[in-house]
Every structure is written in C-alpha cells, then in structure tokens.
C-alpha cells in the first residue's frame, strides 16, 4: 500500500516536471496553430479556438527555408564524415601503433581540447579573411580567404580532439590477440582497421557521428559571423534572421521554430539510444 502510494507520488512528481519541461514546446505548437489575433489575445488561450494550418505555408514562403535546410544538411554531413575519417585514423594511431613522439603529440592533442572556442574566434575570423587589396599590410600568418563560403563553415570542424579521445578509448579495448592474428595473416594496419576494428566499434562511431552532427546542426555563433550571403546560411542563422523579419508576428515565428526543431527532434527519437549512451559515456555538453 505504501509502495503504491509512494509510487504514485513519484509519478506525480515526474509528471509535473515533465509538464514544465515540455510546456514551451506545447506553447510553440499551439501558437503556431493560432491566428495572429488569437496569438496576441490577453489572457492567452490554452488551446487554439480556431486552429489553422495557414501559418506554416506563410512562414515557409517568407524565407528560403529549403535552402537553409539543404545548406545545414550539407555542412553537417560533410563535417561529420570528415571528422569520422580524421578521428578514426588518428585514434587508431594513438591506440594501436608505436611511434616516436607519441606522448608529446598526445599532450598537444589534450591542449587543443582544453582550448576554448573564445580564444580562437577572432583569429579564426581573421584567417578566413581575404588578403587586403591595398597591400599596405603586414601579414605574418596565412590568409585563407574563405570568408562567406561553405568551406569556412566545415573545415574548422573536420578534426576534433574530443572524438579522437573517444575513439582511442574504444580502439584500445580491441584485444591485442586480434591484431597479432591479423599480422600473422599478413594484414596491414589499413586492413586490420577496416575489417576488424571498425566493425566492432560501430556504436562508438555512431556516437561520434551523432554528436558531431548535432553540434553542426545547432552551431550558430561561427556561421553568424563568418557568412553574409543568405544563400549559404545554415538554419540557425536563418531562424535568427527570421526573428527580425517576423517582428511581433509570433504565430509565424512559432511555426518557423516548429519546423526548424522538428528534424532534430525526430532524429533524436530515432537515435536517442546512441546519443544518450554517448552523453553518459563522454559527458559532452555542447
């Protein structure tokens, strides 16, 4: 009896928390279904009295959302694939190879991991600039001229110390006997990596990929400052621009927020096992 009652009170507690946590989503969705008049009614209605779907096509037509989505997918996929390749190779070297300077390089890696993005924001921006045309300048360090390009949004995220650590940890757990057996069979590093290490590391790889994809999908500050052409704008920067254009038309803004949020939420519901495992194992907070 007591367990039943305490079970109920626990559920009650968890439900109250759940309602508080999800309320903003609920309010976002319901506002997106309201007319302008109802969205700005005082006091606000709990449920749309005359629900309408018209806000969605209207918000969609007011900005190049499809382009924003395509840009984001392209940037996220490219940086995720790139990050997987560079991290797998480097992690394998650290986990399964002997070479001179291993500890020094590992320490360097650790140092880059500790380096917060704030330290590199401005110099990275300057490096993305074009060399100035008036030529009176003195530049000791390279200028990539990538300002306002996809490359500027992808390249800095193709290597990640964090992913290397994570995969190294995974690769270290592959038994040494497997490597010895592979060598006796005449398999080199690449074959061993490809046909034995990678297949048994799929969960870790998926974790790295999901975390990288999320980071890329939600990145905002860097693309905000390094792009000016709307054609290459990612979705978060696009939503921020739309905030200004929509002004006080919150019914449209909430419709836009809904379709911006929807893909990641769906992805989360499908891949949540990997993401949660990844967080639990690695503790990345974004």
């Amino acid at each position, binding site marked *: 009896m007591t367990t039943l009652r305490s079970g109920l009170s626990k559920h009650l507690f968890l439900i109250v928390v759940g309602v508080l946590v999800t309320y903003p989503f609920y309010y976002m969705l319901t506002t997106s279904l309201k007319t302008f008049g109802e969205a700005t009614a005082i006091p606000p209605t709990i449920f749309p009295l005359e629900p309408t779907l018209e806000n969605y096509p209207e918000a969609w037509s007011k900005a190049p959302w499809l382009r924003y989505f395509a840009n984001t997918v392209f940037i996220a996929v490219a940086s995720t694939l790139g990050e997987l390749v560079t991290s797998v190779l480097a992690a394998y070297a650290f986990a399964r190879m002997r070479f001179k300077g291993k500890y020094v390089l590992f320490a360097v890696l650790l140092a880059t991991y500790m380096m917060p993005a704030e330290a590199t*924001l401005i110099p990275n921006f300057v490096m993305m600039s074009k060399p100035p045309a008036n030529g009176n300048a003195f530049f000791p360090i390279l200028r990539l001229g990538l300002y306002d390009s996809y490359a500027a949004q992808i390249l800095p995220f193709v290597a990640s110390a964090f992913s290397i650590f994570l995969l190294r940890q995974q690769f270290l757990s592959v038994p040494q006997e497997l490597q010895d057996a592979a060598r006796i069979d005449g398999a080199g*590093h690449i074959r061993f990596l490809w046909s034995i290490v990678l297949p048994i590391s799929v969960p870790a790889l998926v974790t790295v990929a999901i975390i990288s994809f999320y980071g890329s999908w939600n990145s*905002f500050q860097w693309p905000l400052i390094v792009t000016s052409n709307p054609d290459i704008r990612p979705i978060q920067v696009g939503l921020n621009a739309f905030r200004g254009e929509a002004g006080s038309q919150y019914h449209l803004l909430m419709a836009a927020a809904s379709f911006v949020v929807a893909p990641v939420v769906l992805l989360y519901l499908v891949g949540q096992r990997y993401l949660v495992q990844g967080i639990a194992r690695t503790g990345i907070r974004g």
Partner: protein
Amino acid sequence: MSGGAIATDQRAASRRRRILVDSAWAYAFLVPAFLLLFVFKILPAIYALYISLYRCAVFCPFTPQDFRGLTNYTDILFGARAEAFWRSLSTTFTYAAITIPFEIAFALVIAYVLFQKIHARSAYRTIYYLPYVTSTVAAATVFNWVFHPNYGPVNAALERVGIGALTWFDEPNGVFAMIADRFGATLPDWAGGPSLALASVAIFSIWHFLGFQIVIFLAGLGNIPAEYYEAARLDGASQRQLFTRITLPLLSPQIFFVFTIASIGVLRAFNEIFVLTNGGPLDTTRTVSMLVFRTFFQQGQIGLGSAMGVLLTVIILIFTLVQFRVLERRVHYG
C-alpha cells in the same frame, strides 16, 4: 660472438625496422587530424596573442604603427575598458552562481526519483531530454514568447495569482531589490542581486541543460552497487539517510564532473544570451563572451576583442584547474 647474440641483434633490427615502418604509417594517419587542428586551433591560439597586441579601429592591417604592446591588456584590466570588463566578469560569475547549483540540485533529485524502479522510466527520460537536443536559437525564441511581458502565459498565470506581470528579459532591476520593493523596502544597489533579466536567462539555461545532467547522474547511479543500499536498509537506515550517506558520496564524481562542465559552459555562454537579451537591459546580461563579441563585431576593435578573448581563456583555464584542485580532495571516487 655467439649465435644467440646475432639472433638477438637480428630480432632487434627487425623490431627497429617494424617500429620505423609503424612510425611512418602512424604519422600518415595523424597528418589529416593534426594538420587541421594546427591550422584551426593551435595557430589561431598563437595568432590571438599576436592580434591582441594591436589596436586599430574598424579595420586592422597590422601595420607597425598599430602595434601597442600590452596597452590593450592594461586598458581592459585598469584603463578605459576596465569598468565594462570587470562588470561583465562579475555578471558571468553571477550567472554561474545562479545557474549551476539549481541545475545540479534539480537534476539530482529527478535522477534519483527516476532511478527507482519506476514504470515508463525511458519515456520520462525521453521527455526530459527534449530541451537539450533542441537548438538554442529555436528554444530561446520560444522562451522569449513564453515570457512575453504582455501576451506570455507566464505573466497571465502571475496576474491570476495576484503577483502581477513582470518584464523578465527586459528587466534590469535586481531580483532581491524587486522582492524588497514588494514589501516596501529599498535595498542598496550592491544588495539588489542579479537582474531579473539575468535570472530569466538562468531559468532558460537550467531548463535547457536539465536533461544532460540527468543522463550523467543516471549513469552514475547505475554504478552504485545495490548491495550497499540493502546492507544499509538492514541496519535500519531511512530513505533520507540512504540518499545522504550512500547516494551523494558515491555520486560525487558525477557531481564534480557536471559542476566542471557546467561552469565552463556558463563561462562560454553566448547563443542563449544573444537571442534572449543580446546583453541588455542596461548591460546586466553582458557576460564576457558577449562583451568579446560586441567589442569585436560591433565596435570593430579586433585587438581589444582578442585581448579579452585571451583573458577569458586564461580565466577558464584557471577556473578549471582550481576546481580540479579543490574538488579533487573532496570527491569520493567509488
């Protein structure tokens, strides 16, 4: 020389050769990652120091006459920019102080309840985790609407219970000052507390990161052997004692971890503040990250901005090290 020695020599030679070949492969494997890390992490870190020695308005060609030595640093720490800098630093730490303890406490309690054998645990977890996967820009846009001074449901609820509408993200007055004001008291400026705007940003932050902390704590709880609880129960320990004597100490590594990660996250916070308040009202939410952004991107002062970025980095590093030192001794590693 004996045959054995020759064999050893040969073996050593072949081992050396293998190490050499291995090394060549290893370097080849490391090149892509390290090249990119060098260009986008290591080089910029050095470059940041270089830029921070120059002062130019709007456009910086880094000519010798723009070189100012350490003037940017002295200006920020003691000179014309000092007021803004120290103020933003204090804002940053205030923000940390009103965010992190609540984040940890809420997450701990929820994770603890959730960890008990409870139906639909994964459903709850899925729900709690939603804010964290939602992009900050979208989530903050929604928050601005939920807390809208005129049309927001939060104010509608406050009106109903008789507290009355608040201006949340637009309110520069201190929280304590506002409470005191309700009771007809006036507090001195220093006791006014964080502005309601900053407190509102903190509410957002707690909401947004709750799921993250819960997952970490759930993982930690899973590592605590069930026998500990059983043994304690046999000794007649109460629920409360179980929590304070077993759960808390054994969860301390996770608490420490969350504390560190959350502190660094708060010190670096940008996106949510940019969307929610953009540093206002009256600069009460201008954290150091926001100040760096403004100095660099709105005042065109890249040298000063870079110097602030360097100082922020140093602060983050010191803070992390101190945390490790202080907390390491108290943390119980199970």
